[in-house]
């Protein structure tokens, strides 16, 4: 059983590493968020819908309103590291982007550091809005990339240690030894 595990564990690590790295390379981080508000939305009483997300590289945002009604879109740096506290969202002046009174937009947001960010949409007037925003993250997801590299590296090292080291360290075969011994 031990010999089975000794052979299979490094193979499993190599497969995990290769799978993570290939999937990460082939698939972009993208997500579509929907913000929907009825006519005459009362922000004070009903609140707004926002999404908190983690970003490490610049993001590309494409948003449009279904019926051409106007909306405003904001992205903020949240400056939080834990979800256990109340999040105070900074005032409009410090937004990473604040695009106001538009029917559609395409923008790249420069992410200053690895951390949590907030995106939200508000109606520009009393008309109802349904905004679909697609967010595409640029660059690689660092956690998946690092996990892939570490597991692949460990697997390859253990494989080398198990398979190649015994061949290198074994002495020359004695004369008359049967083939394959």
């Amino acid at each position, binding site marked *: *059983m031990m010999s089975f595990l000794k052979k299979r564990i490094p*193979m499993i690590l190599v*497969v995990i590493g290769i799978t993570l790295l290939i999937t990460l390379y082939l698939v972009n981080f*993208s997500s579509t968020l929907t913000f929907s508000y009825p006519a005459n939305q009362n922000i004070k009483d009903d609140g*707004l819908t926002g999404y908190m997300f983690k970003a490490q590289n610049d993001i590309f945002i494409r948003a449009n309103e279904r019926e051409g009604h106007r909306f405003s879109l904001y992205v903020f740096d949240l400056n939080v590291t834990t*979800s256990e506290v109340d999040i105070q969202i900074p005032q409009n002046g410090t937004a990473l982007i604040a695009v106001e009174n538009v029917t559609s937009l395409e923008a790249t947001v420069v992410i200053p550091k690895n951390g949590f960010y907030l995106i939200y949409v508000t109606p520009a007037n009393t008309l109802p809005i349904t905004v679909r925003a697609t967010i595409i993250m640029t660059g690689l997801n660092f*956690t998946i990339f690092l*996990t892939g590299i570490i597991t692949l590296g460990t697997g390859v090292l253990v494989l080398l240690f198990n398979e190649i080291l015994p061949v290198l360290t074994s002495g020359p075969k004695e004369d008359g030894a049967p083939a394959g011994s």
Partner: protein
Amino acid sequence: MSRGFQYIKNLIQKLKIWIELNKKSIAGWLELESHISYRFPVIESIIGMFLIITVITILTGSLGFWKLTLHQEEGNQLVASSDDIGYADSSPLLSIPLSFVFPLVILIPLLVSYTTARGFETGTTKTFLSYPISRFQFLMLKTLSGICITGCISTLSIIFGSFVVGRFMTQLSILMAIIIGIWVLIIFIVSMTTFYAILLKSSIATSFLGIGTFFLGTISYIQLGWLKGYAYFPDSIRGILNPLLLVHEHLVRLYFDSPLLPPSFEDVMISITLCLIISTLVFVLTWKIFEHSEVK
């Protein structure tokens, strides 16, 4: 109650003694099973498949986005309360198991048909049974190895997914509920498909019948959910068709403001218990059939 506990205690004690006495044989069976049924790259393919599903779910889904309700306070300050974040916090954990449902329904019947039913066609079952192993032990070995391998890989994929999205183990109760749902579904599918494998002794028939049964079960679960508004159908019975989806539905409707009433906790527990009872009964039936069947 105390008699029941005493009985379970005695049973565990007997099992411990049996394992101690048969340690060498168990290691031998495991080695044989790993060489016959789980040669390279069976386990590696399952791991790769679950990892691909997890990473794609993380990178392309709504995973990693925590929905918040923002309120405007004095001085136009927007505030999201910790309660909202607490609820939203669970969203990443709930997306991964949902993407596991159909892969599990397809993968497990294929795995069982490869590890169990194919043995009757190639003669490896007969070879295996020539070793000092009873038919009950053989069946336990096949069933438990299938359950443990798929269960452990899917559990580790969920833990990895929650680690990647940056909220590792914050909602332990939700994580546990999802993992229990996955294990119950896996136990149910493995026991049912092992029954087909022993009964039919054909890998093609086992895989098609297994996939068909649980695919139809999952589709029926969804259809009955849509009918819920029009006719009463108990969630506890509906959950037998796919216990993981019932757990998921319970959590999603409980934590996100859903207009539909969530299935109650009691319904979820009844459904899980019924699934486990059915799985045990199916296993006993499979064992009885296998005891009296001829292995060529």
